[in-house]
């Protein structure tokens, strides 16, 4: 037996350099952060070989486990969530399984997230792997009040199941013994899919002549799930049968309104749900810890709404009251009002004698006095406080829960659940979210999601300024949230009725709730603010230049005059029309225009709330509009704009009418 041993240091050997000679090979697989490397370390000791997988920078670690009678080569693979690969690491891990034909595959799973982990277990069984399930991090799961009956899992899955705490060495002897002494036979697929899919699997398998290193059933499933690498493999290995396989997959796809990947994932989830129900100790489940209870409540269709509103309120207090009232007042009134603007006016007037050119840099709409002032004095403190709050929310794991909550609300109004992802992303940036709508499968979903994003989802920057505008009146905040929520549900409901179609289930992995880390929050906030400013400052300066050019040509005044009619109809002063024009450039630029009017005293009370609601519903910014054109085409983008523009003013008009009719004082 020849073994090339080295200290645990990355070395660039090719796989051909490996000289670990063992008749028996075992591969460890599992998601990232499940303690796979610790399990590997426990099994192999400190002498291992690290090499790059050929043609990639992904590292594969190999080691050896031996006793008096047997030696086993152990391979640790990169993190893999699923056999359906997304990342390079996952592709490499899959190739290791396909090329090595191991005698045993040990799936290392995080017990506290067993529900998510079992998806890979199911896929490995479908792939015909001789599998052992290692339920690692058992101590953490027990601390959360979870108790998993490994016997039930063993019986139902037909494979050995070992409970371990690799960091403490617990259960490792049993695992070592299993690896050295037991011969595992593949147990076969644990579940059956709907008949159409099963028929397609059988037809595809019949037409696959080559060997793939995994079962033909698994290859067929990956083809049905549209895995590009597997498609390429089949194209290369089965040139004569490829067209037939392609026809079988297309035929199966046509039989379902939803993508087959979705149908297959949901079927696996159903199987896992029943398995978990039987394998988890119900008495323990009753004693759910506070964090888990909070997690469930935050996704509950009834309890989740007040939690969401509570978060919005805290956000409002932090951004609107602290960020806007303290920091903005100082920067706007003291720094810019008393120092920068007067000094800039004086310098520019002394250098440039022509009033027209002076206006480009200073005075009412100059680059310094409008563009840079908006960016630094108004937007900077507001978005910084908003990004601090957003980073905290992100770090706690609330965002996927918000997605699940919105999904449940979506179902009530008959909308498709998967549209939730771009809608949640829209709270960050609507332009990016509009691009993400392309990942939705049907035209119906894409159109509805794009419309809702353009109409009723304020982006993070606009949201920050809106919260600042609403500062000082929780009643105004309540009215804003209520109107926006009603519009969102009403338009979504209407759109879903006008465009009927399938409303399938939505499935998303939900990570555990956790305390945010200060270093993470600060890093994320700084990175976001820096990124935001790099993007926003040139645009604000460009907007100032365009306004300046518009004023010279008279176009600016003409547009302001045209816009002053609808703003007048909704009870706003003529100056408010400028803010709506700014809103075309960027949503936050428009909201900053309203902020200016508020601080000058030109806008307050009911008209202020009406203007905020109208500008939030109003046209998307230029970037989002051009993205809508790109993604949905000219006709659809113009059609949406033609609906949104009057709709925003109609809603503003109605809100003004109702609030004044009820005698509401804000």
């Amino acid at each position, binding site marked *: 037996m020849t073994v090339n041993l080295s200290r645990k240091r990355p070395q660039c050997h090719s796989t051909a350099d490996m000289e670990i000679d063992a008749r028996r090979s075992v591969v460890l697989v599992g*998601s*990232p*952060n499940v303690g796979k490397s610790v399990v590997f370390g426990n099994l192999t000791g400190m002498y291992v070989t690290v090499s790059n997988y050929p043609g990639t920078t992904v590292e594969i670690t190999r080691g050896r486990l031996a006793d008096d009678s047997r030696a086993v080569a152990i391979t640790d693979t990169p*993190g893999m*969530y699923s056999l359906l690969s*997304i*990342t*390079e*690491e996952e592709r490499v891990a899959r190739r290791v399984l396909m090329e090595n034909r191991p005698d045993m595959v040990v799936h290392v799973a995080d017990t506290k997230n067993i529900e998510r982990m079992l998806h890979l277990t199911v896929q490995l069984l479908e792939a015909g792997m001789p599998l052992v399930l290692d339920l690692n991090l058992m101590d953490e799961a027990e601390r959360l009040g979870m108790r998993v009956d490994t016997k039930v899992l063993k019986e139902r899955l037909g494979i050995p199941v070992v409970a371990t705490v690799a960091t403490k060495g617990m259960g490792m002897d049993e695992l070592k013994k299993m690896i050295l002494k037991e011969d595992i036979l593949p147990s076969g697929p644990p579940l059956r899919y709907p008949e159409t899919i099963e028929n397609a699997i059988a037809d595809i398998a019949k037409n696959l002549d080559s060997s793939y290193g995994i079962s033909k059933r698994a290859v067929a499933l990956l083809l049905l799930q549209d895995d590009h690498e597997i498609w390429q493999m089949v194209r290369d290995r089965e040139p004569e049968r490829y067209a037939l396989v392609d026809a079988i997959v297309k035929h199966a796809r046509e039989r379902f309104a939803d993508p087959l990947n979705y149908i297959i994932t949901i079927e696996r989830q159903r199987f896992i749900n029943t398995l978990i129900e039987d394998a988890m100790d119900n008495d323990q489940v009753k004693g759910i810890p506070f964090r888990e209870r909070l997690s469930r409540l935050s996704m509950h269709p009834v309890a989740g709404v007040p939690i969401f509103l509570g978060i919005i309120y805290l956000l409002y207090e932090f951004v609107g009251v602290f960020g806007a009232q303290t920091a903005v007042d100082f920067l706007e009134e003291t720094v810019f009002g008393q120092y920068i603007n007067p000094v800039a006016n004086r310098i520019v007037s002394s250098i440039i004698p022509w009033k027209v050119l002076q206006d480009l840099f200073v005075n009412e709409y100059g680059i310094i006095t409008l563009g840079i002032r908006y960016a630094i004095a108004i937007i900077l403190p507001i978005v910084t406080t908003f990004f601090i709050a957003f980073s905290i929310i*992100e*770090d706690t794991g609330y*965002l*996927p829960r918000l*997605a699940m909550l919105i999904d449940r609300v979506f179902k009530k109004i008959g909308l498709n659940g998967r549209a939730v*992802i*771009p809608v*949640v*992303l829209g709270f*960050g*940036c609507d332009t*990016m979210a509009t*691009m*993400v709508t*392309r*990942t939705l499968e049907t035209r119906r979903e894409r159109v509805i999601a794009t419309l809702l994003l353009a109409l009723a989802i304020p982006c993070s920057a606009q949201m920050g300024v809106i919260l600042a505008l609403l500062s000082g009146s929780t009643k105004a905040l309540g009215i804003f949230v209520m109107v926006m929520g009603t519009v969102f549900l009403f338009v979504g409901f209407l759109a879903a009725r006008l465009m009927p179609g399938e409303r399938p289930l939505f499935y*998303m*992995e939900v*990570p555990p709730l956790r305390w945010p880390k200060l270093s993470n929050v600060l*890093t*994320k906030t*700084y*990175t*976001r603010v*820096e*990124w935001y400013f*790099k*993007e926003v400052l040139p645009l604000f300066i460009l907007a100032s230049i365009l306004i300046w050019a518009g004023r010279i040509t008279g176009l600016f005044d003409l547009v302001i005059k045209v816009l002053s009619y609808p703003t007048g109809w909704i009870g706003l002063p003529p100056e408010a029309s400028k803010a709506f024009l700014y809103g075309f450039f960027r949503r936050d630029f428009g909201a900053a225009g309203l902020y200016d009017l508020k601080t000058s005293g030109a806008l307050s009370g009911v008209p202020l709330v009406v203007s905020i609601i109208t500008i939030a519903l109003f046209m998307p910014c230029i970037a989002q509009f051009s993205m809508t054109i*790109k993604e949905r085409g000219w006709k659809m983008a113009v059609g949406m704009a033609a609906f949104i523009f009057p709709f925003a003013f109609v809603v503003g008009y109605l809100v003004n009418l109702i609030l004044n009719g009820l005698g509401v004082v804000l």
Partner: protein
Amino acid sequence: MKCPLCGLEFNQEDGLKGCSGCKSMGACGLIKCPNCGYEVPAESGIVKFIKRWRKKTDESK
């Protein structure tokens, strides 16, 4: 890095692959999760510098 929305762990290089078809071609400085499409800004140069400096300090202790 880890996606804050769906929890997928991926390399920054994988996060740039989702940008094909976008006009800015990755110049926006955002990293897109290859699974759900959630975008986060790439780590700032200053943050990277501070992390490297802290790592060096820790190693020298």
